[in-house]
């Protein structure tokens, strides 16, 4: 002890770490209890964050930052609207798309996937040539998901098929698909006839989310417009922003919503978060519920703190009497015990966080060890492109966990502390 701290800090510290042993048995158990709770909280929260973050990243990549659709099914003369959006600041790409459910028939199988029409490379080049928007991304958002074939091959006669859908239709690149529009099916009921359209498969895509890969056809905008037979219509725009971050996204969304663009066309603005609200909500709730359950571990640990300190007050009654004889005031005695609870909380937190880091940073080794022990591969990995356990540290989680566990540890010490302070010096000294 080099600094001139008051005696009660010194005494509290010495109670936890007596000179004749490294640490008192009771405080060790309490510290381990808190550390266990803290490390579990940190581990679970960080892994949950990791999964959440992974899914979020995935969703935002797959769905684009923001989509604009209309209350009506289709948007007509969209090029004017597109111009207006271009002039609006903050957008880096404005991609029109048309989307509808179709019936797709291969040689052997039939499916009812969603078909999405996007601009082809030719469309984009045309735009670039005739337009001032040279700074815009010329590439389509679909490009990064293509696992076979290339984007250049997309034209009015070709399409890309979701990997899983291709499997279930038993088709591959080069095969052809007969596609019936919804329209065509409706007209059959009216004994009219609209011919289906034959596409050849130019490639496969994989977004990583099974629901989508099982259910998607990508065609050119023109090709799908032809199939739908409503003229030059789109379902909406996929918007990319020039900055990432959810707060920026929400800001742009709000600005667009309240702008004049929204009014006349009855436009709907949806972020990827709006579209996946259910999923994100579930992830968030899960984290909350699991954390809540784990807090009970810390509560149990706090119980052990309370018991340890209460026992210590009883064991050290004479010692407390002696301290009073030496001149200690009752609040200082109480402070000693509160400080012990506090220190147990702090040391428990430090230990718990270190342990959590140790576990999280070596999770692959631990996980493979675990799978080798239970003797089977664990299958949950793979969905959403997760081939390892993701971890994402959130500083606010750490702060919350630390504050909570230190507060609980401190509170656990209150009762013993009050008891110690209430001891009458003469009676404490007499105690046998």
């Amino acid at each position, binding site marked *: *002890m*080099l*600094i*001139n701290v*008051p*005696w009660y800090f*010194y*005494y509290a510290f*010495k*109670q936890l770490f*007596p*000179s*004749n042993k490294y640490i*008192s048995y009771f405080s060790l158990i309490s510290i381990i209890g808190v550390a266990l709770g803290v490390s579990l909280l940190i581990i679970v929260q960080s892994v949950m964050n990791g999964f959440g973050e992974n899914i979020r990243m995935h969703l935002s990549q797959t769905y684009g930052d923001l989509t604009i659709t209309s209350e009506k099914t289709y948007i007509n003369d969209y090029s004017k609207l597109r111009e207006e959006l271009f002039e609006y600041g903050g957008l880096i790409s404005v991609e029109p798309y048309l989307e509808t459910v179709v019936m797709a028939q291969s040689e052997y199988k039939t499916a009812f996937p969603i078909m999405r029409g996007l601009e082809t490379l030719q469309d984009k080049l045309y735009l670039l040539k005739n337009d001032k928007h040279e700074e815009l991304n010329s590439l389509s958002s679909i490009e990064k998901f293509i696992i076979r074939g290339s984007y250049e091959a997309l034209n009015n006669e070709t399409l890309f098929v979701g990997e899983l859908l291709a499997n279930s239709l038993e088709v591959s690149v080069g095969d052809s698909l007969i596609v019936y529009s919804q329209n065509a099916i409706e007209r059959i009921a009216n004994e009219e006839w609209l011919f289906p359209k034959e596409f050849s498969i130019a490639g496969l895509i994989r977004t990583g989310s099974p629901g989508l890969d099982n259910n998607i056809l990508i065609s050119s905008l023109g090709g799908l417009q032809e199939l739908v037979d409503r003229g030059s219509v789109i379902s909406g725009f996929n918007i990319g922003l020039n900055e990432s971050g959810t707060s920026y996204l929400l800001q742009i969304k709000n600005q667009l919503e309240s702008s004049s663009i929204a009014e006349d066309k009855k436009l709907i603005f949806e972020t990827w978060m709006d579209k996946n609200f259910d999923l994100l909500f579930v992830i968030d709730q899960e984290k909350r519920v699991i954390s809540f359950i784990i807090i009970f571990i810390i509560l149990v640990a706090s119980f052990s703190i309370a018991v340890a300190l209460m026992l210590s007050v009883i064991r050290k009654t*004479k*010692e407390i*009497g*002696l*301290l*009073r*004889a*030496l*001149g*200690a*005031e*009752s*609040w200082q005695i109480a402070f000693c015990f509160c400080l012990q609870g506090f220190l147990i909380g702090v040391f428990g937190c430090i230990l718990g966080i270190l342990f959590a880091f140790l576990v999280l940073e070596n999770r692959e080794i631990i996980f493979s060890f675990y799978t080798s022990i239970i003797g089977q591969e664990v299958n949950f990995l793979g969905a959403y492109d997760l081939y390892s356990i993701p971890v994402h540290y959130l500083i606010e989680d750490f702060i919350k966990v630390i504050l909570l566990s230190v507060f609980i540890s401190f509170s656990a010490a209150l009762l013993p502390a009050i008891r110690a302070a209430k001891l*009458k*010096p*003469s009676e404490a*000294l*007499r105690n046998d």
Partner: protein
Amino acid sequence: MINENLHLICGKNLWRNFHIGEGLVPIIKGIDFILDKGDSISIMGDSGSGKSTLLNLLSGLDCPDKGQLFWKGELVSNSSANLLSRKRRRFIGFIFQSFHLISDLTVFENLYLAAKIGVISSLDSEKNLKIKVEKALSLVRLEEFSKCSVLSLSGGEKQRVAIARALINDPSVIFADEPTGNLDDRASEEIMQLLLSLVTENLKSLVLVTHNVKFSRYTNSVLNLKDGIFNA
């Protein structure tokens, strides 16, 4: 009539009752007590006669049910326990029959803690505290035991640590409640000699509770406690 202003410790008509069994039993029944600077007093009496109770009253560890207590002329019997604690730090040093050392601490740390509690202003630097401890250790010739756990000491050595602790904050008065009660004859003699020599050398006042007539003769006066009052 007693003039409280002239004395270091002055108790007037002190009473103390305890709940024993069903009833309220008076243990101290109107005692007058005077201790002057440099004075030494032995208190003798049967076990259970109330000697420790009286010491507790005089040292402010316990409150009298009736009567007045003055320290250096100041009335303290109505003061709060915490105020008494603060005043006690540099006024009274204690030595107990059962040593009352803190077993988790070393010899040095026991003294250091007492010195730290005795700190009045922040002017007492860490260095000063350590010097105080070393000085106190040398008074009782325990320098080599500084780093030892108090659990490893013999009874006599423990009581020497306790004597050093009682002196460390340079109090005016030493209260020694049967300091040799747990020691064998040789150690008792040694401790008594050490205590008495330190008390005289450092001009302390001493209140000594003892069953040993020989030791009681070393003090200036002897009081006999019986049935809650002093026998002449």
